[in-house]
């Protein structure tokens, strides 16, 4: 008995010592290859790691692991160096120097202790989104043909590409811009992505984190949306003159202007450090709404740096709140004093037997669509879908699958004209359309599904929940 007690303590001590040496070592030097750190075990390990780090007082090594491939680098993210990018992609370097002059304390252009904001949104999310967005270079038809010829030189016979005539290749769209001639003028379209250097990522990430904190905008909620729209690039320039990191159009900027005077106080009157840092940069905060230039001919206002991406992100914070308020208001409208026949979304949901469904999640979907379609329309589409589904509710009750946004139409379905032709192309054989299908078929919109797809990409590349909210756009 005595012997067994002694061996128990020896065994316990050995286990403790082994953990202290090997466990502590592996926790401290964890390379972070486990992307899907979601099990209870992993969460305990994470907490131990945090405790260990705070006890040691050392800055933890930033986790840059991913399930991804960029060039010849596999499963690890790294910043580009100006020397890697060539002259056609280094066009923002002098802008960062100019930013440093108006940010002498380096709040935005300098580095920070990124472990402090890793829970809000790890810096690697910004790096991943910026590197992944679109292409580094827009290719001309000639370059595309050359690329195919080059590919065929080394590819096996089974993987050869068809080399076509130059005229049969399409020029890549030019989705970036320059604002060199007038910082408030018309952007000059440009095809190449700015070099994703550490300075560039820091500027974007620091700006995003401070706006998120100052204006209470959940970073993990907006990350998939920004990934879908601008890829977090300060000079992104869409095909409908939507410009900058927030991809603002004239109507969206007009909305910001309409709400600016109400929201301005949240920044100017706040004692938060993040708000103080935002206020310290000239040009970020317009004196009044009239200084917000919304016209297409002034789109550089939301693109040129400095002070963007800060100005554009401050606008985005205001836009987020005003659109959310208006979208939720349109969704929740239950009566119309002028129309006794009006039935609101919640009454229709009740009629469809959806009382147990998470209404906040449904409102979130409608809100995400409102980013693109304006705050009032998506609620109309949702109510119409409910009325349409009520027609066949007995035969086909609504289930959670009706709200599935993991959806993407096929090429032929996209080619069909919106309306009944698309319904035919969807081939449902009389079964009712899901919400995503209905929006695609009748309103030509895949916006919610596109943002959801970005969230899936982020979850796959950097681990579930690393850059996205849990159960984002799903019931």
């Amino acid at each position: 008995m005595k012997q067994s007690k002694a061996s128990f303590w020896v065994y316990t001590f050995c286990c403790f010592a082994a953990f202290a040496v090997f466990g502590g070592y592996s926790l401290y030097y964890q390379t972070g290859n486990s992307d899907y750190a979601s099990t209870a075990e992993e969460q305990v390990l994470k907490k131990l790691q945090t405790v260990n780090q705070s006890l040691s007082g050392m800055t933890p090594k930033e986790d840059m692991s991913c399930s991804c491939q960029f060039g010849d680098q596999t499963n690890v993210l790294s910043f580009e160096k100006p020397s890697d990018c060539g002259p056609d992609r280094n066009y923002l370097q002098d802008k960062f120097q100019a930013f440093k002059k108006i940010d002498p304390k380096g709040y935005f252009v300098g580095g920070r202790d990124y472990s402090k904001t890793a829970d809000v949104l790890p810096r690697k999310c910004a790096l991943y989104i910026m590197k992944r967005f679109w292409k580094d270079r827009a290719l001309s038809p000639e370059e595309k043909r050359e690329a195919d010829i080059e590919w065929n030189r080394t590819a096996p016979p089974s993987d050869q590409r068809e080399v076509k005539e130059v005229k049969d290749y399409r020029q890549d769209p030019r989705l970036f811009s320059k604002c060199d001639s007038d910082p408030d003028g018309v952007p000059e379209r440009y095809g190449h992505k700015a070099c994703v250097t550490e300075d560039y990522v820091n500027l974007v990430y620091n700006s995003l984190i401070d706006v998120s904190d100052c204006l209470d905008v959940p970073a993990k909620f907006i990350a998939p949306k920004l990934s879908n729209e601008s890829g977090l690039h300060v000079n992104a320039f869409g095909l409908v003159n939507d410009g900058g990191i927030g991809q603002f159009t004239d109507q969206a900027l007009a909305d910001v202007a309409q709400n600016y005077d109400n929201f301005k106080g949240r920044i100017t009157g706040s004692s938060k450090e993040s708000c103080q840092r935002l206020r310290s940069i000239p040009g970020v905060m317009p004196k009044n709404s009239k200084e917000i230039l919304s016209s297409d001919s002034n789109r550089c206002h939301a693109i040129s740096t400095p002070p963007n991406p800060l100005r554009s992100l401050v606008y985005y914070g205001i836009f987020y709140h005003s659109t959310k308020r208006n979208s939720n208001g349109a969704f929740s409208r239950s009566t119309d004093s002028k129309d006794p026949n009006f039935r609101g979304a919640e009454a229709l949901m009740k009629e469809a037997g959806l009382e147990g469904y998470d209404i906040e999640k449904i409102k979130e979907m409608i809100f995400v669509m409102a980013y693109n379609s304006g705050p009032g329309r998506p609620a109309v589409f949702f109510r119409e879908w409910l009325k349409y589904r009520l027609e066949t509710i007995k035969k086909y009750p609504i289930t959670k699958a009706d709200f599935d946004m993991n959806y993407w139409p096929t090429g032929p379905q996209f080619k069909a004209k919106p309306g009944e032709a698309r319904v035919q192309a969807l081939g449902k054989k009389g079964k009712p359309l899901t919400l995503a299908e209905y929006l695609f078929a009748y309103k030509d919109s895949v916006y919610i599904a596109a943002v959801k797809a970005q969230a899936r990409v982020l979850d796959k590349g950097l681990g579930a929940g690393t850059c996205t909210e849990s159960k984002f756009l799903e019931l």
Partner: protein
Amino acid sequence: MHRIQIFRALILIFLLGGSVAGAAKVDVYSEFQKKIAKLETDLKKEKDITKKYDSFLKSYRELSDLRAKNPRQAEEKELNMSLFMDSLAFLPEKKEFQAKKCRDYKKEVTAMMQSYSKDQKEPFVERAFKVVDLICK
């Protein structure tokens, strides 16, 4: 003779039945658009803003009743009609309406119903904006 009478009666019932069914079947979408056109004409003619608003409220209610009393139409038509109605739902009720606030009403309707993407055209939203313009002009 008796058989002929029965035969005639059957034909009469058939014809009457057909015409009653025909009368009951309303082309809601077409009627809806006719009513909007009439509203637009009335608003153009009327000078007094309070009377204009009364005219709008009457039409708005008629449009709603037209839809409520008839079966659901094809989806695209229903969506268009709802976009028109919902755009104008942001206008106040009669007792709250003030002519001097017309500019704000217009701003509100536009802010709620205008798309941020220029390529998303909705003719029935545009038509609702036009009605607001005609009321406030």
